[in-house]
């Protein structure tokens, strides 16, 4: 009784806020929760005319097929290594960039740098990879010619398995660091200016202010984004990898999503593709929960 009354009271009081959040709720219900029953496909031999419910159950057949593939070990290794390297490099760079940006005094110059830095985000990944291949071509590529000044024999870096991850991660950092820094720039803008003033009065230099005011102030943002990024860790899209890899670099470049692309989508094996997708999501959830737990224990900041 009373619970109901309190609910009513809350709704009457916060109806505007609830209205604002409604589109988000509908979005997640329709596009995220709604399709979830499709997970069933992973445990069935999906037959289109029978639909998801009518298709026969096959238990873990598709998971066994995945684990049974001779490439399973390599796929796990490549997917994890690529994800981890990507996180290690692409996560701190935007933070450092935002901090540096904050130290630029000239407003106009600051804005120019910021805009210039996030422009690459809008360049199609096809174009980025094209530029990269061009720069690194063994036959007349600008970077290759530059390296040869230092006595490096020209070679095609896209054919070296050991060069794949650095190229992938490096170009990704270049393309996204400006864009990803926006949220930190916003967080920094929200810091109370009085903190800086009083620190300056106490004799703190710019470095001290950065370490003792700016960083701690945006730490919650950093940790939240870190947790969220970890939850997305294995969701590496296949597009860029497919553009960058070739048969000589499969040994480091072939990851789950490219494997599913070749095997599942190109051969219309829907159930198999769902099984891999599900396995991927389960691992992601485990990583997310783990990261959240650790963050809660150590810093008392967490997403839930």
């Amino acid at each position: 009784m009373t619970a109901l009354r309190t609910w009513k009271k809350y709704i009457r009081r916060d109806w505007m806020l609830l209205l604002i959040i409604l589109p988000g709720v509908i979005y997640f219900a329709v596009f995220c929760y709604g399709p979830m029953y499709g997970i069933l496909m992973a445990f069935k031999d999906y037959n289109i005319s029978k639909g998801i419910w009518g298709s026969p159950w096959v238990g873990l057949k598709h998971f066994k097929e995945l684990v049974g593939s001779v490439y399973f070990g390599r796929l796990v290794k490549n997917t994890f290594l690529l994800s981890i390297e990507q996180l290690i490099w692409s996560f701190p760079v935007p933070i450092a960039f935002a901090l540096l940006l904050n130290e630029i005094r000239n407003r106009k110059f600051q804005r120019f740098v910021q805009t210039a830095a996030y422009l690459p985000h809008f360049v199609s990944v096809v174009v980025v990879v094209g530029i990269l291949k061009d720069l690194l071509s063994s036959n007349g590529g600008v970077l290759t010619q530059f390296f040869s000044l230092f006595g490096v024999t020209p070679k095609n870096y896209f054919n070296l398995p050991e060069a794949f991850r650095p190229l992938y991660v490096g170009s990704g950092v270049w393309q996204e660091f400006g864009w990803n820094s926006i949220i930190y720039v916003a967080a920094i803008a929200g810091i109370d200016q009085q903190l800086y003033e009083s620190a300056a009065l106490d004799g703190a230099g710019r470095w001290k202010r950065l370490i003792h005011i700016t960083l701690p102030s945006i730490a919650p943002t950093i940790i939240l984004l870190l947790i969220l990024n970890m939850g997305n860790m294995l969701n590496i899209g296949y597009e860029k990898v497919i553009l960058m890899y070739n048969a000589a670099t499969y040994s480091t470049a072939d990851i789950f999503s490219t494997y599913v692309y070749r095997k599942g989508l190109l051969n219309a094996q829907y159930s198999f593709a769902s099984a891999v997708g599900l396995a991927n999501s389960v691992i992601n959830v485990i990583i997310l929960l783990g990261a959240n737990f650790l963050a809660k224990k150590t810093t008392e900041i967490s997403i839930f």
Partner: protein
Amino acid sequence: MRKRFIREMTAVSVAAVMAVAGGATVFAEEVPDIEATGTVYDLGGLTLPICEPGEVSLTYMGNDTWCAGVSYNDGTAVQQEIEKRTGVHIEWDTYSSDVETVLQTRMASLEGLPDMVEVPPFDSNVGVDTYSRNGILIPLNDLIAEHAPNIQALFKKYPALEAMCTSSDGNIYALAGWWGDINDYVPDYLYIRQDWLDNLGLEMPHTIDELYDVLTAFKEQDANGNGDPGDEIPLATKAGLKNLYYLMTGFGYDTNSLWYTDMEGNVHYAAVEQQYKDMLTFLNKCYSEGLISDDLDGTLLTQNITEDKVGIVCHDPADNMASSDDMALTGNPNCNYQFMPVIQADENGTAQMTKRALTWHYYGITSACKNPEAAIKWIDYVYASEDGRMLYSYGIEGLSYEKDENGNITFTDLITNNETYTSAFSALRSIGAWPTYFINDSGEAFMKIFEGTKVEDACKAAYGNMRDPFPEMLGTAEESEIYTSMWPDLSTYLDEMFTAFVIGTESLDNFDSYVETANSMGMQQIIEIKGAQYARYQEITAG
């Protein structure tokens, strides 16, 4: 902008047709039912119109025109003419990118199924198995027997086509896009810079040893004459290093096809045979000496051609020789690519090149189609009837071609001197000819487009001197199951090892263990499947 251009061209065409109406009406009177633009050709027993104008409307889903910026949705001239002659209105649900994904999603969810469909995944026939077993593609046998005289005639002319359309249960669920006609004419092999050979005083290579000498000369000397002896790439591939298996003709194989049959009709896969090792050894030597481009997936090929760097292009059809010339001409006005003869093991070699694959796209009618009779009649018209094929290959009389009193056809300026679409193919595609649906490309029309060029010479030299390609048959349920679970991993392994052997990251001493691994991954089972399919192919083509 382009849309308006096409609309204007259509208006021009109507005017042009009125001007030349004298010759055209004579034919049109014989078939009074059709209100046609230009000559009406043989309908092969089909009666037109199929229905009263606009009475039947069908949806088609698949690729859009292969001409950038032009969509069937814009009312391309040829499609409008087809509608005028057949009375059937087509709603084009066509896309120029990501078609496969969109189609697969729709077909998997049974939502918004079109009446006629290009069966995904393209470049493969597994979709025909999947979607026919699921009841989405309806059997066409009875429809064809009752309503499609031209398709019947086409099957009679090309038993291989009927074989490739026939599923393992004996039914026909999809019609194969048919390249059997055009591929009799168009060779796909290697072409070489004749001007480089002339610059260095070399002869056209015929054997594998001569080829090696030419490659070395291209590498070591300044073949393009720009003063830099180091910028030449002697041999590059169109779609990646694995294309280099084309050189197998120089190593005792009769033809350049990985799948082949011997005298007894046994099916073989070349890449796991001892002979193949000799080719790999040769390629490895060439690669280590810098004779083969290290652009392993071929992405830089066009750029390198444009920069006047590529001596030989491997695995490209003859018509692309002309476009390669156009690209390189900007850098070097002397550029002259010539099609190469088949590379032999020695002077007495008799290896022949293989024709391009007969099909790699399939088209069907879905269970959502309310009027399959009209659909099959429409397909019969556009895919197999002479009248429909004239529109298909040449476009519209008066707009894209003229016909003199002897029946000789010449393309108009719109096709040969188009400012926007410089190649005749794109110009034809921009008005809706050479479509992407129910493909049945005409070799004669192809030769017409390239009349008087070296492409024509190359085609004439190849005509009648090429082997039939290995047939791609539709699998049984069991075969498809084995194939789809084993082949993706296996083909990854084969590609990877081919590359590793050639670029030298894997020693050729390990060739035997490579064959063993391939067998353990199911190579022999795949060969068995192909063998069974080949047997079915022979049965159908013989009967």
